[in-house]
């Protein structure tokens, strides 16, 4: 789930890129402040996407300041100062990470399982703290885990069914960003479509790994072979679903009244998501010719 929801940098203005990085740095620092230095490893791009919405919708005044960082100690970088959006996002990052470890303990074998068990122990206190301040979100994600397990054990699964738990979970999390029922409805759809996109792309990306380890993957039937022809067919069909999800995401986003950070979010929806699709497809030997439909594509691909 890492890095599927990122901006397409060549299409960002320089100042927008700076702001995006400042929010990213801000979240990283917030994780360090709220929890521990170790928890900064749990930084995720999809949570930064959430922060963009949360900042865009909130009335809170935020400040950006130049600060030093462990990763680039010599140069001071612009960084978003402490604010309620970041605090919430840091809690959500920890909750997501904790449940991801639980999932790993269930799925993985031997060494990785051991590592995940170890991480569960280290993160337990942090999780309890996060779940206390964000009990609603912690319940949503716990529910999602149950649904996911039920789904993987059930017999009949279509792509829509397989996406549903993840998509619903992100939809409900996105919904918590506003108190206005109209906005909540739109945010739910935005979250749902983002979740759908992430789930499908993640499943595609893992297809070889899951085939080898015989793990659950919505694109693989039980005991079926995976040859090159079949694989390209799977990718071809999945692309249609991905496109449809992104277009629906864009349609909902255009209905949402949000003033701040709009251009960065637009960049992610219209270019960033597709650039991530392109990367995954190329990684699996399914190149997509001129796909982003923008000025930068021919220069950067």
């Amino acid at each position, binding site marked *: 789930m890492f890095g599927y929801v990122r901006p397409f940098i060549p*299409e*960002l*203005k320089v100042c927008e890129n700076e702001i995006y990085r400042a929010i990213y740095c801000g979240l990283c620092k917030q994780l360090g402040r709220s929890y521990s230095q170790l928890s900064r490893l749990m930084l995720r791009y999809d949570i930064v996407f959430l922060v963009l919405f949360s900042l865009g919708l909130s009335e809170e005044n935020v400040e950006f300041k130049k600060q030093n960082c462990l990763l680039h100690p010599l140069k001071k970088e612009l960084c978003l100062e402490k604010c309620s959006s970041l605090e919430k996002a840091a809690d959500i990052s920890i909750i997501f990470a904790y449940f991801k470890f639980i999932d790993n303990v269930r799925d993985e074998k031997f060494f990785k399982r051991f590592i995940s068990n170890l991480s569960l122990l280290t993160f337990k206190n942090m999780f309890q703290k996060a779940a206390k301040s964000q009990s609603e979100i912690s319940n949503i994600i716990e529910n999602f885990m149950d649904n996911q397990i039920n789904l993987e054990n059930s017999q009949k699964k*279509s*792509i*829509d*069914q397989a996406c*549903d738990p993840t*998509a619903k979970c992100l*939809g409900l999390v996105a919904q918590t960003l506003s108190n206005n029922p*109209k*906005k909540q*409805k*739109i945010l739910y*759809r935005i979250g*749902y*479509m983002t979740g*759908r996109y992430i789930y499908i792309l993640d499943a595609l990306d893992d297809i070889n790994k899951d085939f080898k380890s015989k793990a659950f993957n919505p694109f693989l039937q039980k005991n079926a072979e995976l040859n090159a022809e079949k694989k390209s067919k799977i990718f071809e069909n999945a*692309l*249609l*679903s991905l*496109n*449809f*999800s992104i*277009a*629906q995401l*864009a*349609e909902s986003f*255009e*209905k*949402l*009244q949000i003033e701040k950070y709009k*251009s960065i979010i*637009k*960049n992610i*929806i*219209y*270019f960033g998501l*597709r650039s991530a699709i392109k990367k995954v497809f190329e990684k699996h030997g399914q190149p997509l010719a001129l*796909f982003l*439909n*923008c*000025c930068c594509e*021919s220069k950067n691909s």
Partner: protein
Amino acid sequence: MEKFYKLLGIDENATDSQVKAAYIAMKNKYDPGSYEKEDLIRHAEEKTEQITQAFDEIMNSRRMARMKNGEPVADDSDAYDGANSAEASDDYGYIEQLIESDDLDAAEESLDAMPQNLRTANWFYLKGLIFFKKGWLEEATEFFSASCKMDPKNITYKRALEQAIWQRSGNFGNPNGKDSYQSMAGCAPGCDLCNLCGAFVCADCCFRCMGGSYTRC
């Protein structure tokens, strides 16, 4: 009269139930409640008013025509499609209301309870609409396509399917582009390679007039 039909996106030969379906679909589309921006809400309200007016005008004129021809006039205009489907379309009206008020589970339950022999193209369309609202886009596409196969002339079903195909092939908004929110972020309009080349050739011509050249030839 023609403009009213145009507004609903149907032709004058459409049956009463098709007019009704088109009216409901358009009303759903322009439901002011689903927009947030003020100018969009205003636009949606205007549209809703126009659509309602068009629907009333069409229905009234049809009723008048029937009275002139001495046909019986019932309150429920669907009664003309035969007893069986009239019963079914009543149910559909109720289900449409459920879908409109976002009570998708109840709508799906009522649809599934309908016996196989009454499942018309509208049944498949509504089922698709429920899936679409739920976010199950694959199933939605399949049901829209089934409804189009059963009734290829219906403009509402056709539009739903066309939009799904359009967005699945990597586009945003609608195929006819009129009501789409197509706003490719950050990209100047028409900023593609062809235009770039065209602009370059133009610039080169101008430059040559002044005695220089971008190209060697």
